[in-house]
Every structure is written in structure tokens, then in C-alpha cells.
């Protein structure tokens, strides 16, 4: 089999792994070597599905002894199989890297013979790259569940980021769909990697030359929509993972039916892309906006509002906390305003030390006034000429696509078109709340 065909098969088999980031570590090429890494990460291209391509993401082999129902590489699937030799893959990585096609390698693998053997082969690829090519670029390695802890340890010393996929959000789903994997076989290495990273940070303080263990941390991924788990359950789990396992990222992957199985959605079911999108938005709120999972969803509301994003949804349900005065509000408060992001909030803090902010200034700082206008005041004043009507508010707080969806669903349920007119008087908080939450 030629290299083209191998690359095609092993890319095709790896593409359902979502993570392709190259962030979290800053490195310079060693003398006589090649490769560096930027902590912000660098996207090298974007695939036609809009996803960033930063790493050469391939499997070492797509042969697998396991038979996970949701997976394209499962043993029972009739599909062409291929194996890279470690040297072949290392050479390909370097040649792609020299041409600046990629930021590094993302290496995963089907379980070939047994977990230990697979892990050894992966280590050989990484060792060749690091020691023979003196490659300092980014490497993301998947830990193989069930492999010997010493092998995981060795892999982590060669990689920048490690990950283990949780795949299914609950024990029950895992038992039904991935009978060869147990919750234990996933969480044990995850805990091991967490402990190693923590130990490593003390080692590095003691000995400057101590080998670094997965300096860009660890991440995981789970499939959304293959099982009946709710958004709330998934988000709670995500939050728990960040807290308990100090993960850098949790990725979500909308399930695309590949196999027909009585326990899985039927082939042809559309992947729940909007749901996945909402989960990512909420994930961002957890990591950068100081939200907790319980604020976004709870036992009574287990599913995200499809029409507005989770932050906006939270704000609409807490109108008593708004409007916020941008010249005085604390950073944490500004972060909760729809239309103000992390950069915007930081800029507000910087700029208002110098002069009082008005709405023109806010716009210049990169605040999305279209959204923020309902939630802020400048020097106690609302944006001049702000009229709160149902139509304008919906238009401002929803994207075109969400609006279309919303109007479509209203037609579906034949809700009578409601006109709410406030006339020329200044709208009150209640008006706004009614006008937004009442309808949504």
C-alpha cells in the first residue's frame, strides 16, 4: 500500500477526534533541532467543515481489537485497514512541518494486538521525532486505556498534551455501547496523568532540567447525541472534570450515525450541531466567564434554550441584576453582560481609568452594542433612542439563524403573532423582561 492510501485511510479514521488545538505551551527549537510552539496555538488551515487544522491528526493504525458500537474502527466494521511504521510517520510529520503545513502531530491509534503494544508503537514514533529529528514542535498523544502506567508515563514525557476520550457521558451508556471499556479504565489513566503533571511542577522547581510531563496539560472528548444524556448531565460532568482532573479542555462531538445499531440513533439522523454549539458556549462560560454549571442549567431546565445563547439566556432570567453601569461595575459583573467578552471587559477596565466611557467609546472598545445596549448604562444613562420592542430585541439578541429557527417554531405551534407596543415612553425593566422572556 502506498503512502497516499495509508494517509487517506488513517486520516479518515482519525477525523472524528475533535481536538486539533496546539495551545498551552511555549517552546523554541533546541540547538540543531527544528520546531517551536506558541502558547496561543496556531491554526494552519481550516477544513471545509470550518474546523481548525493545526496538527497532522492520524491514527497509527485503524486496526482495533475492540468493538465499540459508535466507532468507525470497531472490529466488526468492514473497512480497509492500514498501519504506519513509526519511521514513516515521523518522516511525514517533519516534511509537513518544514513546509509549515502543520504545528505538529496528533497521534491516536486503534488498539492493535493489545493496549501495551499499541502504546509502545506510539512511543516509538514520538521518540524518533524528539530524539532523532530533535523535533520541538507540538505533539498531542492519546493515552490508550488499559496500557501499563509506565508506558503512559513515558508517552507523557515525550508529548505536550495527553488526552483520553471519555466518549460517553454516563456509566450506563458506556456499558451499553462500549462493552470493552470500563469507566475505571478511562478515569484511572486520567488521574495518573493529572498526578504526574502536578508532581512534575514540583520537580521542575527542584531541578531545572527535569523532563517535562505533558506541559500543555490534558484534555478529553465526549460524544453528544448518541445517548439520552441531557445537556445538564453533560455540563455537570464537564465542570467536574475541570475541577477534579484539572483538564485544559473538554471537547464535544456531535454524533454522526455511522453504524446501525438498535441502541444508536438511526442512520440519516442529523448530527445535533446546535446542541454541540451550545455546549461549547457553556464550556467557555465555565472556563473564562466564572459561571458554574448550576447557574446555566438545573434539574428543572436540563436542556439549553435553542434560540439564545446560554449567557444571554442567563441574563434574561436575571434581569433584576441589570442594567450594569460600565464606569463602575466590577470585572466579574462586566463579564456577565451579553455583548461584552473577556477582551472587551479588560479593555473597559483599562480605558475607564483614563476617562469616563460613553456608548461611542464602548463601541470602540469592541463591545457588541447591539446586544449590550439592553444591559448597560453609561453614566447612568441608557443608549439614546433605545426603543425596546419585541421585534428589535429579538433581532438584537438572536443571530439570523436563531431568529429563523425561532420564527419557524412559532409558525409550527401556531402561536398568534403578538404585538407589544411600548409607545414612546421609556421602557422599564419589566417591559424588557416580559418582552424577551415571555416570548422565548
Amino acid at each position, binding site marked *: 500500500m502506498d503512502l497516499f492510501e495509508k494517509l487517506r485511510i488513517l*486520516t479518515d479514521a482519525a477525523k472524528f477526534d475533535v481536538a486539533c488545538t496546539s495551545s498551552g505551551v511555549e517552546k*523554541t527549537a533546541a*540547538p540543531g*533541532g527544528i520546531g517551536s510552539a506558541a502558547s*496561543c496555538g*496556531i491554526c494552519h488551515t481550516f477544513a471545509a467543515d470550518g474546523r481548525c487544522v493545526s496538527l497532522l491528526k492520524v491514527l497509527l493504525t485503524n486496526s482495533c481489537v475492540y468493538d465499540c458500537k459508535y466507532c468507525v474502527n470497531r472490529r466488526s466494521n468492514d473497512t480497509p485497514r492500514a498501519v504506519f511504521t513509526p519511521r514513516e510517520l515521523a518522516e511525514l510529520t517533519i516534511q509537513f512541518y518544514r513546509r509549515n*503545513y502543520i504545528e505538529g502531530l496528533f497521534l491516536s491509534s486503534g488498539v492493535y494486538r493489545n493496549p501495551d503494544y499499541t502504546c509502545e508503537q506510539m512511543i516509538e514514533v514520538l521518540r524518533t521525532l524528539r530524539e532523532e529529528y530533535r523535533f520541538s514542535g507540538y505533539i498531542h498523544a492519546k493515552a490508550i486505556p488499559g496500557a501499563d502506567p509506565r508506558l503512559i508515563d513515558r508517552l507523557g514525557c515525550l508529548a505536550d498534551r495527553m488526552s483520553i476520550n471519555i466518549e460517553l457521558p454516563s456509566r450506563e451508556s458506556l456499558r451499553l455501547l462500549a462493552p470493552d471499556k470500563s469507566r475505571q479504565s478511562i478515569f484511572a489513566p486520567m488521574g495518573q496523568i493529572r498526578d504526574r503533571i502536578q508532581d512534575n511542577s514540583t520537580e521542575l522547581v527542584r531541578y531545572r532540567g527535569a523532563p517535562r510531563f505533558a506541559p500543555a496539560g490534558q484534555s478529553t472528548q465526549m460524544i453528544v447525541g448518541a445517548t439520552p444524556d441531557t445537556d445538564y448531565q453533560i455540563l455537570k460532568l464537564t465542570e467536574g472534570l475541570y475541577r477534579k482532573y484539572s483538564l485544559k479542555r473538554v471537547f464535544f462531538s456531535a454524533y*454522526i450515525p455511522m453504524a446501525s445499531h438498535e441502541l444508536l440513533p438511526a442512520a440519516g439522523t442529523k*448530527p445535533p450541531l446546535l446542541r454541540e454549539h451550545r455546549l461549547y458556549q457553556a464550556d467557555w462560560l465555565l472556563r473564562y466567564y466564572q459561571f458554574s454549571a448550576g447557574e446555566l442549567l438545573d434539574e428543572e431546565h436540563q436542556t439549553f434554550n435553542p434560540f439564545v445563547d446560554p449567557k444571554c439566556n442567563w441574563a434574561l432570567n436575571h434581569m433584576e441584576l441589570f442594567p450594569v453601569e460600565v464606569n463602575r461595575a466590577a470585572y466579574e459583573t462586566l463579564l456577565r453582560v451579553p455583548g461584552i467578552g473577556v477582551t472587551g471587559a479588560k479593555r473597559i477596565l483599562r480605558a475607564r481609568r483614563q476617562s469616563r466611557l460613553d456608548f461611542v467609546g464602548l463601541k*470602540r472598545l469592541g463591545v457588541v452594542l447591539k446586544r449590550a445596549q439592553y444591559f448597560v448604562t453609561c453614566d447612568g444613562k441608557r443608549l439614546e433612542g433605545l426603543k425596546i420592542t419585541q421585534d428589535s430585541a429579538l433581532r438584537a439578541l438572536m443571530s439570523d439563524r436563531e431568529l429563523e429557527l425561532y420564527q419557524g417554531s412559532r409558525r409550527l405551534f401556531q402561536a398568534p403573532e403578538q404585538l407589544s407596543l411600548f409607545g414612546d415612553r421609556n421602557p422599564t425593566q419589566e417591559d424588557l423582561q416580559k418582552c424577551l422572556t415571555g416570548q422565548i
Partner: protein
Amino acid sequence: MPHRPNLNYLYDGSFEGLLCCVFESYQRDEIPADILPPDSSQLSFLPGREIGTDPERARRVLRSIPEKMGQDALGLVKYAFLTCLAQKELHILLFLRRGYQCGPSICRRLTDDAVYPVQKAVQHLTREAHLLKGFIRFSAYGNLLAAEIGPENFVLPLLTEHFCRRFPEERFLIHDTAHEMALLYCPHKAAILGTEGLTMPLPDREEQDFRELWRTYYNTIEVPGRHNPKCRMSHMPKRYWAYMTELGREEKETGRLSAPTSAAFSLEEKR
């Protein structure tokens, strides 16, 4: 208040030259209508005054900037000079005049009329440089790596450190076709030089194979059920595509890379 005579300053296009314009502006207590480089395509009916480049004056202004408004302001001004902002020279003058007035706080005055356009232009520059760190595609010609780009801003100075740190043992060249300049690197020295009539030679068999492998990878990595060209376009604007191996470069190959001119491609000559 400085007066605003109806005339343009004409300078030599260098950063030092611009600093001398700043000197002139203070010496005469005036703000010109515009400051134009020699090859300016902008038509103006106003009379122009040649501002000579005096190294001593330039040095005085250069020294005063970090003293009066801090190192960050100087960094911002240096970057602003690389941007494609229309009337960048005049904007830099106005920024500096404001900076001499209010001191180091200038960098926090993000909403100020004199600061906002400069900040915004620099943001555009750094963003473009960041994108290109990923989007640049090298081709291997023997042991030389060469790439072409066509950026809006003059990004080469911002790319130098990144690629030198990344490929310390390689010999490489990044040709900015829009500004007719190139970044050249030989272990362990880098230089940015002017290029005229530089064209790339034809790729050899091995190079073509790697391009083809990369295209194979790119076309395979897409998840078909998630096709979303709009999203791709917003992350990767189309004007970068022409220089990217996996998108568009093939069609142009015969046109762009056909006739390698003999004098064009010699690192030795350029050095």
C-alpha cells in the same frame, strides 16, 4: 493650539524621515494636512514641503518617545508604521502629539480620537501576522525553503522571530509580493531585503508529492456531515487562499510559477 496650514509634508518614506516630520511639526508649531512618502499615489492639490531626514533630529525624537510616554507607546508607533492604515503618517503624528500632551496614559486611552485609529490599525497588523504564521506555505527547493505571501500590512518584521525560532537550521525565504520585500534566513542570520522580479522555480517531483499528500490530508480531514464553507471563510479569508497549497494554488501554478528567471533566485546574490 498649533495652526493647520494647507500644505503637505513630503518625507523619504523611512521611519527616521517620519520622526523628522514630527520634529518639524513641533518646531513650527503646526500640523500639516498630510504627510506623504515619495511614491505616494495620492493626488494632492496642496503645496508640499520637503522634510529632509536628519539623523540627529530623528534620534532626538526617538529618544523622547519612551521618556515621555513609555516603551509601549514607542512599540505601538513602530508597529503603526508597518500597517496599511490610510494616512498612517498623519495618524502617527497626531498620536505622538497627544502622547507628549498626556504622557504614559496614552496607551490606555483606547477611546481617544488620536489613539483609536492607530490601535485599530496595529490590531489589524498583528492579527494578519498571526494568521500568516499558520497560513504560510513553504516549498522545498533543494535545501532551501521558499514561500510567497501577499499581505495587506508589512508583516515580515513580525514574522522574523517566529520563523527563526522555528527553523534555526534551515535556509528559508519568505517573499512578500505585495511590498516586494523578502525575509531571508541562513543559519543563524536573518535579513529583510528588497526583491524585484523574484519568481519561484518549478517544484521538483518530491515537492509535488508532498503537496499532493497534504492535499489528500486536507480533503480527507473534513467531516462530510458538517460541511460549513461559510465558517471556513470567516476563519480563513479568501485572499489568503491563492498562496495556500491545499486551496487554489494548483490552478495558478502554470501562470504564477512558470518561467523561472535566471537572475531571480539566488540567495547568494541577495546577500
